[in-house]
């Protein structure tokens, strides 16, 4: 129990990732697959956000006027969260949105041509 609780953020990300993965593999409806893909990507974003966080830390902006000369040694790193993973996730969110956009556009085109979003139906029409 202690093992689970102490690292609960990682457990949540793994559970979410598996939910998304299940939807992508097992569901035959194309829209449900896209939703699964979204959950999958969100899980990874949560994972990155949680690795940058620190207990009792604040946003990474120096608590001094910008013209004040602060020697780098006097900055306590533990007081600020790590901004890099969060910045990386900005890019990953943009990528995720575009992938979802492309997938939804494809679904619209598929629906126009086959009049269904069920994979089995489409495969039957294709064969």
């Amino acid at each position: 129990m202690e093992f689970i609780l102490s690292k609960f953020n990682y457990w949540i990300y793994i559970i979410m990732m598996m939910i998304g993965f299940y939807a992508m593999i097992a569901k035959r409806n194309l829209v449900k697959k896209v939703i699964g893909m979204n959950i999958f990507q969100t899980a990874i974003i949560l994972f990155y956000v949680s690795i940058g966080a620190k207990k009792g830390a604040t946003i990474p902006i120096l608590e001094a006027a910008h013209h004040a000369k602060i020697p780098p040694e006097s900055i306590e790193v533990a007081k600020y969260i790590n901004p890099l993973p969060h910045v990386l996730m900005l890019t990953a969110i943009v990528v995720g949105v575009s992938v979802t956009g492309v997938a939804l556009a494809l679904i619209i085109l598929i629906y126009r041509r086959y009049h269904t979003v069920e994979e089995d139906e489409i495969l039957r029409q294709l064969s």
Partner: protein
Amino acid sequence: MMQQAPAFTIVILLLTSFWVPIIGMIKKESAYYLSLIAIFFSFLAACATLYTVITSGPIHYRMGGWPPPWGIEFVVDYLNGGVVVLISLISLLTTISAKKSVEQEIHRSKWPLFWSLYLLLILSLLGMTETGDMFNMYVYLEVSSLTAYGLIAMGERGALLASFNYVILGSVGASFYLLGVGYLYIATGSLNMADLNKILPAIYHSKVIFTAFAFFIVGIGLKMGLFPLHMWLPDAYTHAPSAISTLIAPTMTKVSAYVFFRIILSVFNPQFSWEVIPAATLLRWIAAVGIIYGSIMAIAQKDIKRMLAYSSISQIGYIVLGIALANQMGLIGGALHIFSHAFAKGCLFMIVMAVIYKTGIRNIDDFKGLNKKMPFTMAAFCLAAFSMIGVPPTAGFFSKWYLVLGTVSGRHWFLTAVILMSSLLNAVYFFRIIEKIYFSSFVGLVNGGHGHHEHHEVVAVAEAPLGMLVPILIMAAGILAVGLFNTQIIHLLLQFIVPKGLA
């Protein structure tokens, strides 16, 4: 100028891909010529980059002047300098030969967008090759996937579903890669490849590193169509527009194979990849099964594009086998196979594009007597097919020869048998077509009523247009050149990938 060459390969394409749809709104035809000029200049920049690397050693190009662990850098050394020139050369030739085929297969209103996406795809492949930063690699990987989804979906019946399946699998692959980057970042706090290579050896026995390695293998394996993860590849290659099959078949999987080399050899140490975890043994078996599976599936296909797609899966198996042999000959064979397979598969797909453009033939049974109609194209087809089978002095023979030497020096006799067996299977499915082309008489519907003795005169030579034929012949010459100058290529570029102290 020369110092900026690595950035120019990408920047030229990036800026042009932005302007192509805008100028294309005014005049649709200009989109093609703009793209062609941009790809040509990008190719020149790639050549300049390789020239600098050969004369004065690896280049470290800092984007915006930021020093490496913080800034993003482009690192071009001997291996990826060669791959960059290879990719841009094949893209240039594909672009020249694709003009007529695109005009036939893509609706006129979509041309500017098509060429814009096409440029983005090439630039992302070049970016994946040149970058020295793990997260930058992820971004290029996603750009190449996204453009490929769009371009594949422009194809014929069935392309939409093929593209959708690729969206789902491709994003799983990219997400796994991203997770791998995250795990490495937790353990090391760095994203730069050279920096990671310095920090990692101290913590090689950590479970986080094992997990990251596994994520990378699965993510990149999905992208390059490694055997159990290849499900998207046959459908995507078959249903994409011919020009896009021709572009992605020789370049996209090869770039991913190069990334595979880079992650195993220069992000992780070879000692880690081969000794700390038994990755080599596992990859050897996967590659062996993939080689045989791809060849057998290729024999069963009727559609020529689908047959070539399955043969790609088999050839990817060779490259991975080369890495997994973990000795000098194997590594060189695997790296040389990137070059030889890119030329051979590019040439084959260009020929298929020309045949589809000229006659509309896709079914292998309809290739009967095509040598009378398109003699030069079919001669090039034979040469490329010989390279795939491994007939000397084509490129395919030498890369397979080094791989066989690698299996022998590692005493993996079973794998030696697998390579020879697969060459035999390749011969089966290529000679089946060559036999149709050259040795079965052409009985067309036009001269069905005439006597059998007449039809030789009736078949007129209807060769592919010059714009398609010249690139095909250049590619065929490239197959011979890689074969004949293989020792020079190895001496100049590939010998540097072998880690020191490896037998």
